[in-house]
């Protein structure tokens, strides 16, 4: 009786969770990228549910039927070594399921590398994303705008995010609009996203990067074209100018609220470039406990040499 009550309440709890599942962000895609991933997830869920039902059913049946009872204490199980036919069957079926999952996985993987289908005609907006401890910096090179911890985009327009990091490794994720990708110093990764409708979507870092990680969130605000253009215009007219000195201050490990500037830091440094300088200072990361030795980060001479001699760019550094 107790067991029945327990299982009943468990079933209720699980179904409640499932019902609330319809509201989960991954299942509420707001753009074609997230939608294609959700379709893949749903396809896999269907197959996995089938596996669960079959194995659980078989498990319940066998354990119940062959459990030891006072009546069958005299029963001595037969000697049985296996069955080639059955073993081939339960090797072949998983292989078929894996194939059924592989094909859409691979096609989706390739699709996600490009502008989402149906949006090829529209010129994508390029936004450089620089992640730093513990903030997100968005640079619009064409518009000449830089925003911190929020990014405005026009609806129904493909946006190409070019991701890099000023220091630690982060992962850029806007679950309502699409999957995530890492941002790494001296690297550039690319991610296309599109928003179907105007709206505000949560974005965040998912790759642990120290004390400020939990709050490393940003807002994606999708706007109509008019609103977006008006915003760009307003920023150009009213936002303050970012100086190099101020920018270096921003990169220190801090939390910042929203900030807006009418120029971009790309004029001085693009952290995605292989020979960009690491501008963070280990001293800023000191915390409790015994402190170890800090080493010179870059060979200072090397960098200045390259700066003085533009033609040696690239080749000089391959020797590292």
């Amino acid at each position, binding site marked *: 009786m107790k067991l029945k009550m327990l299982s009943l309440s468990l079933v209720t709890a699980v179904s409640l*969770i499932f019902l*609330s599942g319809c*509201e*989960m*962000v*991954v299942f509420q895609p707001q753009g074609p990228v*997230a939608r294609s*991933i959700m379709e893949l997830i749903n396809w*896999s869920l269907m197959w996995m549910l089938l596996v*669960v039902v079959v*194995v659980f059913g078989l*498990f319940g049946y*066998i*354990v119940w039927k062959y459990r*030891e009872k006072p009546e*069958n204490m005299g*029963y001595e*199980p037969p000697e*049985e*070594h*296996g*069955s080639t036919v*059955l*073993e081939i069957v339960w*090797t072949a079926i*998983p*292989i078929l399921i*894996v194939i059924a999952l592989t094909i859409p*996985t*691979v096609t989706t*993987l390739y699709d996600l590398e490009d502008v989402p289908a149906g949006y090829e005609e529209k010129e994508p907006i390029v936004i450089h994303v620089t992640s730093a*401890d513990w903030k997100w910096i968005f640079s619009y090179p064409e518009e000449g705008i830089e925003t911190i911890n929020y990014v405005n985009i026009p609806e129904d327009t493909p946006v190409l995010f070019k991701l890099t990091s000023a*220091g*630690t*490794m982060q*992962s850029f994720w806007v*679950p309502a609009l699409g999957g*995530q*990708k*890492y941002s*790494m*110093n001296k690297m550039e990764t690319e991610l296309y996203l599109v928003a179907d409708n105007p709206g505000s979507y949560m974005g*965040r870092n*998912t790759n*642990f990067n*120290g004390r400020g*990680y*939990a709050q490393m969130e940003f807002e994606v605000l999708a706007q109509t074209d008019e609103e977006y253009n008006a915003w760009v215009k307003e920023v150009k007219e009213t936002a303050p100018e970012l100086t190099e000195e101020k920018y270096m201050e921003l990169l220190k490990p801090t939390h910042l609220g929203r900030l807006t500037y009418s120029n971009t830091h790309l004029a001085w440094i693009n952290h995605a470039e292989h020979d960009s300088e*690491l501008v*963070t200072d*280990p001293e800023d990361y*000191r915390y*409790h*406990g*015994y*402190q170890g*030795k*800090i*080493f010179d*980060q870059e060979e200072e001479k090397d960098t200045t040499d390259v700066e003085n001699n533009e033609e040696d760019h690239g080749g000089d550094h391959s020797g590292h």
Partner: protein
Amino acid sequence: MGIKWDEILITGDPIILGSQIAILLTTLGIIGGLTYLKKWTWLWREWITTVDHKRIGIMYIVAAVLMFFRGGMDGLMMKAQTSRPEMSFLDAQHYNEVFTAHGVIMILFMAMPFLIGLMNVVIPLQIGARDVAFPQLNALSFWLFFSGAMLFNIAFVVGGAPDAGWTSYFPLAGKEFSPGIGNNYYAISLQIAGLGTLMTGINFIVTILKMRTKGMTLMRMPMFTWTTLITSVIIVAAFPIFTVALALMTFDRLYGTHFFTVAAGGSDMLWANLFWLWGHPEVYIVILPAFGMFSEIISTFSRKQLYGYKSMVVSIVAIAVLSMLVWVHHFYTMGSGALVNSFFSITTMMIAVPTGVKMFNWLFTMRKGRIKMTTAMLWSLAFVPNFVIGGVTGVMLAMGAADYQYHNTLFLVAHFHYVLIPGVVFAVFAGLYYWWPKMFGFMLNEKLGKWHFWLFVIGFNVTFMPMFFLGLNGAVRRAYTFSAESGFAPLFLLSAIGSVILAAGFAVFCYNIYWSIRYADRNISSDPWDARTLEWATASPVQHYNFAKLPEVKSLDAFWYMKKDNEGLTLKDEEIEEIHMPSNSGLPFLMCVAFGIVGFFLIFEWHLLAAISAVLIIAGLIYRSFDYNDGYHIHKDEIKKTEGAWRKMEGKVNNHVS
């Protein structure tokens, strides 16, 4: 050298201060107790210097249970901190240290030693051998593990705990972003413990290949022996990668090289690749022996031979090969491109095939059997549905494109707990209840065992099931808090409640050990489960030479047929011969101390002191090279006496197994 004395102890946090006091009191208590009871010589002679595989196994298991407690407390602290939005029980730094410790301890200092402990106790017995191939090396393995584990465990009170996650990703884990010495602890203590594991791998490969008793061909080996062999092969293949990665990490952190740094041409991606090149096989290192234990237990309590033995062997070999080919699935999101991600999606999903084969073989082992619901069997039964949930979500994560939405979320955390807890923790509990009488000569209480089982399994599901849904709703791992607006609060609270139930299960387990040591019936049969493999063909607890006469094997499930055909169960006086056994040695323990000292100095970057004390290690190696002690012989009279004692009292199966 400039030792900064005031920085050595961590101060300013009440929880850490409490731990410091508790550690001090416990240490004083142990020292006082041993002195008062005059147990120092006993401890030294019987345990610290032992080279007996059974005792080493027991020491591994004791250490693992302690580490389980430590890692579990870390887990509970995390659950308490995230039980409500904006909790301020732990601050961000403390939370980071706690989840790092939880991950490292549970994988490397709980799961690994627990399994290696059971392997140590059981494998030589299962193959009908008197010890492992290299008994003293085995002791060294244990003591190196112990040295590494202790170093890692003191980090949070002395010098500062590692705080970059158990994956310790660069650049965060480098000096550029973690200038404290906390992550030196990670690099050095895992290196020392890893050396021990590598030696264990070599030891068990040789033991299983060279020391099987007469008639035990490879295809007559019990499944646990098979999985241990394959696990040891993976250890030997994968651990050197970790050794190298940790060495490079040590160079980066201690000597300013640039292997993984972002500055001066290092590559943080290289660390991720090397780490998972070891890290993924590591998952199979812990899961395969567990599969082996389930195979033994399911077969014993269904009273049937393991179904599809050959396909089981093929499956574990296939899993071992595939385990080395899937590491990139831990970072599909690094931007390697569609081709690379497709390749690794396919190899990862392929692992589901041999695992599925095993699952069906277990089910069909039980079919037509007579399933006896002992505690050990209940753990094995619960493993099946829970592991299937872990498995299917694993396939979902394997699909590169879908992983872009799951990566680093609590969906992933829920998945790997659904794989590792049913796969490893259920297995070690099952194994412990099953082999406990073999180790100690009495059983664990079955009634308490069932309380332990139900509380643990229900608590586990209540803790981790909500995390799947939290993850799909955008909750990420390793975040020390979340906002009230996120809407995550109810499921986080449910999960926290589950963890309390889980902890209650563990508490019952500890009480069960205490109860059974005090009250359990000592007068039990040497084969209380009516089992099938050779470890049950000798006394419980096993006499130190294991077998007076080495058994001869004619088929799979050798002991089952020995009982059935009434063959080889008795021992005649004229069959008794002198037995050659290895001598005890204090050297492995001294090496543990030496490695501990050198490691500690290296962690604090006191290079001169480290260099000086490294002489101790070299001295130990030299001493060992000139060690010509090749053991001793046990006299016939002693064997006669020992054998007479247990063979006479061969008795009834105890009544609390019902």
